[in-house]
């Protein structure tokens, strides 16, 4: 009964979404006030319907209702409740339902927080979101319905992929989806603005919080995925340039460009058409990222043939979203004349450079990711495009980007001089060069480049703040007062830029990592990276739905125990698969990393790693997302919010 209710709610949501699209877009076109006023109500209605549908699927998973095909294929009764529930979105059909749920949350959020928008703009934004939702809900209903029943129901489910039974990976999809789908709001704003034929500074101010929120979630989601790869896959890599990773990186790159160019729209009423295009491209990349990878088209052309209806449906949907929006852009973009002019050397100019470089990196990653399937499809050639290609092509584009990142904020709007920027930044440049030289002497060129770039970014961000609070030029207490009064947007930008510096330092540290694979019997030990590693014991430990083999590995230095690590492997009898469980001891400066390999003849193969600065990679991403959050809290993005206006005066 519950799954049928879920299915009905899904159909209802699809109908509401279609109504939303038709009524609101027509209403806004004909200036029908009563139709436009329905926008928030329809958006809330759609959210309630999808919420109910999603809850029904989660319930079926939680109670292990194996008469539902989706549950029977991807769940099993002995799994812990947490993983039963998170398993709801651990497969294709469920994840599409989650995707639709997040889209509905975005629509409802525009309805809830958009009361300060002009009625027609709000109606159009929610209408466009409804149109997108209607298409994907129809897909969920017909081609990938999670509520299909099977008869007779099996006694036991086939179980979820053991790799997904991990806390980080369980919460990874919702966070990533909040980022991906969040970009639907800037997209809807862009389409609405093209329909209205008007973009002004206010538009930039409305779009930026949405873009920034999505960007924060996407940053956190990507970092979480990379962290998972590091500790779970068992060989210490954190970025593989895998198609799935690349497709999350692409919207991040264009989204980063978007949040910067939206500043220019907001402050200087320039770069309008470009910002609109970025909004469209970012959402298109999010869409193709989610669905092409999920459908397996990107990984292998052969997967396309396995589920042709699904693949074709998705391609058709992508076309339906992208072609009309790009057509509309081509028709209406010339209407949006730029208002603010600027010289090449100005903060606007620096942001244009940032956009060019970010989009170039995106173009390179895009071509590299799509090249192998297309070469196979069109030329019949088997090609690999892997890490060495991406590393060597992205690096030359990333270096000028990092260089410009500290200079840009030091330039003034409209027309800038280099000399004042130089006065602000010379000490940061000197220090970065010194760091680079020391690193080049001690290690190698690549690490030196990374550390110098990291120092440049972090010190550049400090220099930016120091300039704003006139540090050392006025009395310290006055500087402090200025710091307290700084707009949060400025602090957020500096924090986010410094966060990238921290990440780059982590990546540079990882180029100095070392590893060794050794075969040890219990009691044996090996010397590696200045530590003595002793395999103390090797035990079998049963778990709820798996059997694991746990090693106790002692790392000691000068006879003193530093850490006892417990790397393990887990075998899942139901699924017939195994996963490795690494054990990592970190002191935030260096990771001692161990993974268990083959176990035979009472001994075990262990992979030992010494990863300097590894945690900084993800720490930097957290700092970046934090910077975005600070920027979001800026008063200027809230000024329009009526709730804040009515601050109560204490009686």
């Amino acid at each position: 009964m519950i799954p049928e209710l879920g299915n009905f709610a899904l159909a209802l949501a699809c109908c509401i979404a279609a109504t939303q699209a038709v009524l609101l877009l027509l209403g806004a076109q004909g200036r029908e006030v009563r139709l436009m006023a329905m926008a928030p109500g329809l958006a809330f209605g759609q959210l309630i319907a999808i919420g109910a549908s999603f809850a029904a699927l989660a319930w079926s998973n939680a109670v292990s209702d194996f008469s539902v095909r989706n549950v029977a294929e991807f769940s099993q009764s002995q799994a812990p409740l947490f993983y039963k529930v998170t398993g709801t979105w651990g497969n294709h059909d469920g994840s599409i339902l989650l995707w639709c749920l997040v889209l509905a949350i975005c629509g409802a959020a525009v309805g809830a927080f958009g009361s300060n928008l002009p009625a027609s703009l709000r109606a159009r934004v929610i209408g466009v979101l409804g149109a997108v939702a209607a298409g994907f809900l129809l897909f969920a209903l017909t081609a990938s319905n999670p509520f299909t029943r099977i008869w007779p129901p099996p006694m036991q489910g086939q179980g979820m992929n053991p790799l997904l039974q991990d806390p980080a990976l369980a919460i990874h999809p919702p966070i990533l989806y909040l980022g991906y789908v969040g970009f639907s709001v800037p997209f809807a704003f862009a389409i609405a603005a093209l329909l209205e034929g008007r973009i002004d500074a206010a538009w930039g101010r409305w779009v930026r919080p949405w873009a920034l929120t999505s960007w924060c979630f996407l940053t956190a989601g990507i970092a979480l995925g990379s962290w998972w790869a590091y500790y779970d896959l068992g060989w210490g890599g954190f970025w593989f340039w895998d198609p799935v990773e690349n497709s999350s990186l692409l919207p991040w790159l264009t989204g980063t460009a978007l949040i910067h160019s939206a500043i220019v729209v907001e402050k200087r009423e320039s770069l309008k058409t470009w910002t609109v295009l970025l909004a469209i491209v970012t959402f298109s990349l999010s869409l193709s990222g989610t669905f092409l990878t999920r459908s397996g088209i990107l990984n292998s052309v052969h997967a396309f043939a396995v589920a042709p209806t699904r693949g074709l449906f998705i391609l058709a949907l992508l076309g339906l979203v992208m072609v009309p929006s790009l057509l509309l852009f081509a028709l209406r973009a010339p209407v949006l004349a730029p208002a603010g002019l600027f010289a090449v050397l100005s903060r606007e100019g620096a942001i244009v450079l940032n956009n060019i470089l970010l989009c170039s990196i995106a173009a390179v990653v895009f071509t590299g990711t799509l090249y192998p399937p297309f070469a196979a499809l069109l030329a019949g050639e088997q090609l690999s495009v892997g890490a060495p290609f991406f590393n060597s092509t992205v690096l030359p584009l990333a270096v000028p980007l990092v260089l410009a990142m500290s200079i840009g904020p030091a330039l003034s709007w409209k027309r800038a001089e280099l000399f004042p920027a130089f006065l602000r930044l010379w000490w940061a440049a000197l220090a970065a060069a010194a760091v680079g030289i020391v690193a080049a002497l001690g290690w190698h060129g690549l690490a030196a480049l990374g550390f110098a770039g990291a120092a440049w970014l972090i010190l550049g961000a400090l220099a930016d703040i120091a300039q704003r609070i006139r540090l050392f030029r006025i009395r310290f207490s006055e500087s402090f007062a200025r710091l307290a009064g700084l707009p949060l947007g400025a602090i957020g930008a500096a924090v986010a830029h410094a966060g990238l510096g921290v990440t780059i330092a982590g990546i540079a540290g990882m180029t100095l990592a070392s590893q060794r694979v050794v075969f040890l019997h219990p009691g044996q030990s090996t010397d590696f990276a200045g530590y003595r590693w002793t395999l103390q014991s090797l035990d079998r430990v049963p778990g709820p739905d798996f059997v694991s083999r746990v090693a106790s590995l002692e790392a000691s230095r000068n006879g003193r125990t530093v850490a006892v690590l417990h790397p393990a492997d887990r075998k899942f009898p139901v699924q017939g698969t195994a996963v490795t469980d690494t054990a990592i001891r970190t002191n935030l400066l260096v990771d001692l990393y161990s993974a268990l390999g083959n176990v035979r003849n009472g001994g075990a193969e262990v992979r030992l790693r010494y990863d300097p600065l590894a945690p900084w990679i993800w720490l930097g991403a957290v700092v970046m997302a934090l910077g975005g959050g600070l920027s979001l809290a800026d008063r200027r993005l809230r000024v329009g919010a009526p709730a804040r206006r009515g601050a109560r005066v204490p009686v």
Partner: protein
Amino acid sequence: MRWLRILLAPSLLALLLAGPSFAVAPTLSQAEEARAVAIGSQLRCLVCQNESVEQSSATLAANIRHIIRQQVAAGWTNRQIMHWMTARYGDFIRLDPPFNRLTLLLWVMPVLAPAVGLGIALGASRRRPGPPPPLSDAEKRRLASLLE
């Protein structure tokens, strides 16, 4: 190079006969091991999803790792080893695809994309109207009369 191949053929045959997984791993110096790792990271593990042979735990990858180390120990150059690998497994094994007609767009993109971007940006800044021309005498008179 012909003599080299003649010399190499029997040693390779011996290598294959010995069966890589059972052959004794050659002891390499630290520099040689680093070279082997560098080569291995350029090669795709053919049976895995996007992993290099250095990273993969598959048997095939272990065998290729072994072959690389033997070739490094035998004093082969990087180019010779890569050549041997592509001759045996095709370009698919190279994570860094070769530059040829098929991969032209791929390798040109890192230069093309920023060039196009800069071109568009410069074009847009040219097209932008300059400062408005100074007022003509008639306009100045009209302005004066309006201001009065």
